[in-house]
């Protein structure tokens, strides 16, 4: 145990002053008796009576004083560091739309986040880590840092986007950063995509620590929503196209519902082969309004 503020040490003298105050009170305090003649046969005991005996109030005050002085001293517990440099880590987080898919009661993204946080909490004090998020393009969230608390905070701020993924690009960025300053970093990837879909050379893949979340590759998503209406057309002539893509490696079925001003105007039951895409045309709008961007749970779902 060490202290950061030794200048507070003299305050310990206050404890002595507190004792002196109590002693003074004890010596000054007199107990009135009707006569001392009855006490003449009792031997006078000045030493024992004047001796300091802590009372409960004194102990409480001394404790309070000690706590105050302790706070001023800024005590700390020294940690013995046997290494001068820590390991390096690069965390690649997939924040694409597929990470929003539910697995039981939680989403894939939260599962990946939990794993990433566990990894950060297990870092040594000198370990450095970099954080990269990847959707359609990679983004450097944090450079190498030893501030693990900040890193956890940045992880918490990440959110999955309504966008596709280009995980290969993010991994390539991580691998490019891996060997900087002559120190090799370990690259951890948190995604729901299978390793085989990355399209990277196997010598690059073998250096990755791959954390795949999700039990299936269910990944049916609305890839695009486009509305066509030229300046000379009214709402009834407008036409919307919804592009739905099955990213999974097996056929999937779903229901697409499109809303206009929160009122369903289009509903279509469909099935889609593996890795296929389908486009739906929505027209005949019965009034002007807001065409809701169909969310995963609202416009498309597994069947």
């Amino acid at each position, binding site marked *: 145990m060490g202290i950061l503020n030794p200048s507070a040490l003299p305050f310990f003298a206050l404890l002595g002053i507190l004792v002196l105050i109590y002693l003074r009170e*004890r*010596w000054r*305090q*007199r*107990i*009135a*008796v*009707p*006569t*001392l*003649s*009855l*006490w*003449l*046969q*009792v*031997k*006078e*005991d*000045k030493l*024992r*009576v*004047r001796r300091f*005996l802590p009372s409960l109030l004194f102990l409480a005050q001394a404790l309070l004083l000690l706590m105050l002085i302790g706070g001023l001293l800024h005590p700390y517990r020294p940690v013995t560091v046997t290494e001068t440099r820590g390991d390096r880590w690069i965390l690649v987080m997939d924040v694409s739309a597929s990470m929003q898919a539910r697995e039981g009661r939680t989403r894939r993204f939260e599962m990946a986040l939990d794993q990433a946080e566990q990894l950060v909490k297990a870092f040594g004090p000198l370990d450095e880590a970099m954080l990269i998020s990847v959707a359609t393009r990679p983004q450097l969230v944090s450079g190498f840092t030893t501030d693990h608390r900040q890193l956890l905070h940045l992880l918490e701020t990440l959110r999955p986007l309504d966008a596709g993924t280009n995980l290969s690009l993010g991994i390539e960025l991580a691998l490019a950063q891996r060997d900087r300053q002559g120190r090799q970093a370990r690259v951890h990837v948190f995604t729901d995509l299978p390793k085989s879909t990355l399209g990277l050379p196997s010598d690059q893949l073998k250096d990755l620590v791959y954390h795949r979340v999700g039990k299936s590759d269910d990944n049916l998503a609305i890839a695009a929503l486009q509305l066509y209406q030229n300046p000379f057309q009214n709402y009834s002539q407008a036409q919307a196209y919804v592009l739905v893509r099955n990213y999974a490696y097996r056929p999937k079925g779903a229901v697409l519902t499109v809303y206009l001003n929160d009122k369903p105007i289009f509903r279509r039951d469909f099935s889609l082969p593996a890795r296929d895409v389908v486009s739906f045309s929505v027209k005949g709008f019965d009034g002007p309004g807001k065409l809701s961007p169909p969310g995963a749970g609202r416009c498309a779902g597994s069947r």
Partner: protein
Amino acid sequence: MAGARGVSTIDPAFLKSLDRLRVRVRAARGHRPGETPIPRISQPWGIEFESYKEYAPGDDFRYVDWNVVGRLEQLLVKTFTAEREIPFHVFLDTSASMGAPTIDHKFAFAADLVAAFSYVVLINNDTLRVVALSSPEKGQRPFLALSSLRHRSQFLRVPPFLERLTAAGKTYLRESVRAYIEQTKEPGVAVLVSDFLTEPPQYEEALVLLKARGYEVKAVHVLGAAELEPSRLFRRGKLYDVEDQSERWISLTPANLRRYQDALQAHVGAVQGFCHRHQILYTRVSTASSLIAVMTEEFPRAGLLTLR
């Protein structure tokens, strides 16, 4: 300095419980006819029959017992227990020792006793003087006395007088009592309420002076609860005598406590023994007792009061 703050706490219900009591008089005499029966003294009229005596010229024929005359052929007249108005003198020690230890409220308790006792005296139509034995340190006369009271209605003058008193100064029982009896012609019953915490010659001479002047003396020894059990007051500390301001550092170990209690018992025994030798009625009361218990149980048991 302690005041007699307890006097005002005497409530009507308490006073009502005193209505059935009177002071037991053994030897005091009074000149005026009254209501207090005087044992062993007869008079030719009255209520309580005592004895017969042979008729003498001048005796009232109304009291000749004709039944006895018929049987014995002798003129005998009835005699009755004498009933007199007894002058009572209630002395209250107001020295500083009566005010210590403060937690005992000894002086207030003693003042309450004096007030209650005064009430009992006045409801029996005896005369009363309440005398506060003072000390020169207060810049007062050796005693402060309330003028003679004679009737129940005058009891209302007693509590205000007692409330003005404070416990302060040294004990001068001897000098105060001497100064009082020199100014008083008619002896009667003297009740001395004190803690008797003074040099033995002080209280001994005061009591002897009263006896010598023909007073029937009764001593009420007031002891504080913390005096009897000093562990209530302190464990260790600097004690000081409220009268002479001397100090002593005392640690209340079991052995020291025993020594103190031995000394206290010796003091109490000395006062009691002196009273016994001089035929003075002695009663000891503790402030731990309630006032009503003292007046209605302890005093009658000790022979100071009796039922009317």
